[in-house]
């Protein structure tokens, strides 16, 4: 070989082997990550993989991790209790994927889980990622239970594999709209949403309900899921002097938004949905968060049948308090396991009909699905920030 090419050849070999080594190492690393409950399966046990998808990076990484923890807790308990399904001893393993709350990444992750031949999926967290991903799961016949996606479109697609364990935004928006008009007496309402499927969907439902109640929507402003500066739209809203400001979006942005509202001297009641009803909102908004209202599907943790005990278990295992949806993720996982036990099989085709007709007493309440996959008897609770903590106000619906 000519001297000129020898370096190139050597360089290529070095590069290719480095790549190969790196690929092998990262693949090894990944596998260990997915082992979930540690240890290797013994010969008689059958390993069943459960998929979890949620945002593990980004503004709501704390919520995604919370869901993952809920599923992990359920699986650890199932493994510790020695689950037997269809005569076989089962060991569950979780494959947790990060969808970054990005709808495109969500479909990539969904395909990954389908290809990994998981027995079921708990996910995703955001409506924006859950809805496109549900098509992939439906095509693969893979049951999917979402612990937190509330947009109505998710169960309106006619997918027999789509379920959720909390009330949807049609209910939540309606309750919020009625509360705003009847209880808070708002006549001029300004609405902001973050243009995500969840935020937009909830804001639309809220608008419909508020208008039906006789209030006037004086303006509709938009932001996106990554911004932290809202001074421009808040200033514009301030000029229109609303009684109430409704935000359809998540806590990571509602927090700074509250601060900016107080800085601008915008005097309007602040109302938001379940994405804001978190501890993170209290941390981010600080003292400016006082008097903000928010709703959350279901009942407060201490009113849930298994709420207190679950909170203690969670704190013990993860050394931090529950963020928001962990009890729902926990219930979603246990409902799926219950369906598998009832059907005597972990095969999606076999346990899917059982899942549709299941009645499972979870920590959040009784889990039963209607024919669309929504939870039957879902309720919505309202909270207000008082003394730097979320104070429970009332519950609508349920039973």
């Amino acid at each position, binding site marked *: 070989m000519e001297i000129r090419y020898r370096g190139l050849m050597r360089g290529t070999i070095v590069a290719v082997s480095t790549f190969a080594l790196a690929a092998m190492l990262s693949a090894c690393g990944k596998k260990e990550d997915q082992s979930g409950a540690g240890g290797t399966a013994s010969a008689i046990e059958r390993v069943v993989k459960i998929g979890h998808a949620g945002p*593990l*990076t*980004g*503004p709501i*990484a*704390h919520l995604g991790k919370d869901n993952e923890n809920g599923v992990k807790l359920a699986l650890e308990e199932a493994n510790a209790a020695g689950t037997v399904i269809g005569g076989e001893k089962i060991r569950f393993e979780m494959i947790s994927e990060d969808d970054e709350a990005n709808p495109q990444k969500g479909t990539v992750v969904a395909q990954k889980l389908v290809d990994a031949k998981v027995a079921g999926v708990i996910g995703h967290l955001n409506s924006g990622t859950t809805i496109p991903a549900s098509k992939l799961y439906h095509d693969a016949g893979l049951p999917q239970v979402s612990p937190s996606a509330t947009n109505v479109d998710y169960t309106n697609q006619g997918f027999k594999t789509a379920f959720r364990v909390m009330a949807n935004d049609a209910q939540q928006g309606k309750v919020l709209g009625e509360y705003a008009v009847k209880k808070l007496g708002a006549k001029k309402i300004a609405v902001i949403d973050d*243009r995500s499927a969840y935020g937009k969907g909830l804001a639309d439902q809220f608008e419909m309900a508020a208008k039906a109640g006789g209030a006037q929507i004086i*303006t*509709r*402003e*938009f*932001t*996106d899921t*990554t911004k*932290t*500066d809202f*001074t*421009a*739209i808040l*200033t*514009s809203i*301030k*000029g229109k002097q609303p009684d109430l400001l409704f935000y359809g979006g998540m806590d*990571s942005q509602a*927090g*700074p938004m509250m*601060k*900016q509202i*107080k*800085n*601008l*001297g915008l005097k309007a009641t602040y109302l938001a949905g379940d994405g804001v009803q978190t501890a*993170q909102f209290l*941390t*981010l908004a*600080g003292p*400016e968060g006082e008097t903000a209202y928010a709703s959350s599907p279901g009942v407060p943790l201490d009113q849930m049948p298994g709420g207190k005990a679950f909170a203690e278990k969670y704190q013990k295992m993860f050394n931090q308090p529950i963020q928001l949806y962990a009890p729902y993720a926990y219930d979603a996982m246990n409902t799926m396991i219950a369906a598998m036990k009832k059907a005597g099989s972990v095969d999606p085709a076999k346990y899917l009909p059982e899942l549709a007709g299941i009645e499972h007493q979870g920590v959040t309440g009784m889990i039963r699905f209607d024919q669309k996959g929504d939870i039957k008897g879902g309720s919505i609770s309202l909270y207000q920030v008082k003394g730097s903590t979320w104070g429970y106000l009332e519950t609508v619906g349920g039973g």
Partner: protein
Amino acid sequence: MDIFLQQVLNGLVLGSVYALVALGYTMVYGILGLINFAHGEVVMIGAMVALTVMNAMAGMGTALPPQIVLAAAVVTAIGVCMALSFSIERVAYRPLRRAPRLAPLITAIGVSILLQNLAMLIWGRQYHTFPRIVSATPHNIGGASITDLQIIIIAVCAAIMTGLLLLVHYTRLGRAMRATAENPTVAGLMGVNINRIISATFVIGAAMGAVAGVLVAANYSIAHYSMGFTLGLKAFTAAVLGGIGNLGGAMLGGLLLGLIESIGAGYVGDLTGGFLGSHYQDVFAFLVLVLVLVLRPTGLLGERVAERA
């Protein structure tokens, strides 16, 4: 009318920060012809380091007044960012001085990704709350509200920019920087230590960036590992808008971009009759950039890049 004034004030606050960060980009581009993509991440690191110092001091239970804590945090942040930028220049950019322009550009993007992920590993993925140091009671000026912090931001940025202009125009170092910016080879022949001047440029830019980072984090009370990216991008846009390589241009571009964003987001909905909502805020800002560059490619005040003989 007071709403317009409010939007203008908001825009000035936003714009001052953009201007401060834009100066870092413009100085480096003027001398090296390199877009230092890592600068946005240096700003972020400044904010995160300041946050860590403030939390550490609060955790130690010292009864120091908050101003001292803030001062200590800012000084530490400046120190860390200066060292960081110096190292980046030495390790990543200096070896590529003679390389074709694409190599340092890709390297800069690489350094940016590296710093972002490093910050994610060190500080985690969640949004951190930046402690409140200055009181948040708003003052009323002609119907518009402005808080103490916002006044401080505008004042600090103005002071730093004035200081920089004085440095560049009335000191020996400044003269050497201007000479290097005009023609590095000839400046070297005239006895200017090019390497030291380039390092000084990076370091000064980083110090300003650190202050900007702390100001931004304090303004929104939020700091997180990806806050530098968009800020850096917008600041670079502002630098180009005003004329890349031109210090006055960076300042003007920054302020202008802040004002356009603020007024655009506030009024675009009304102007287009609800057709375009306020989420087109960024679209508005970049549209203005495109228009300016089409009509005046060298930016508003004209670009000043080194002549490469």
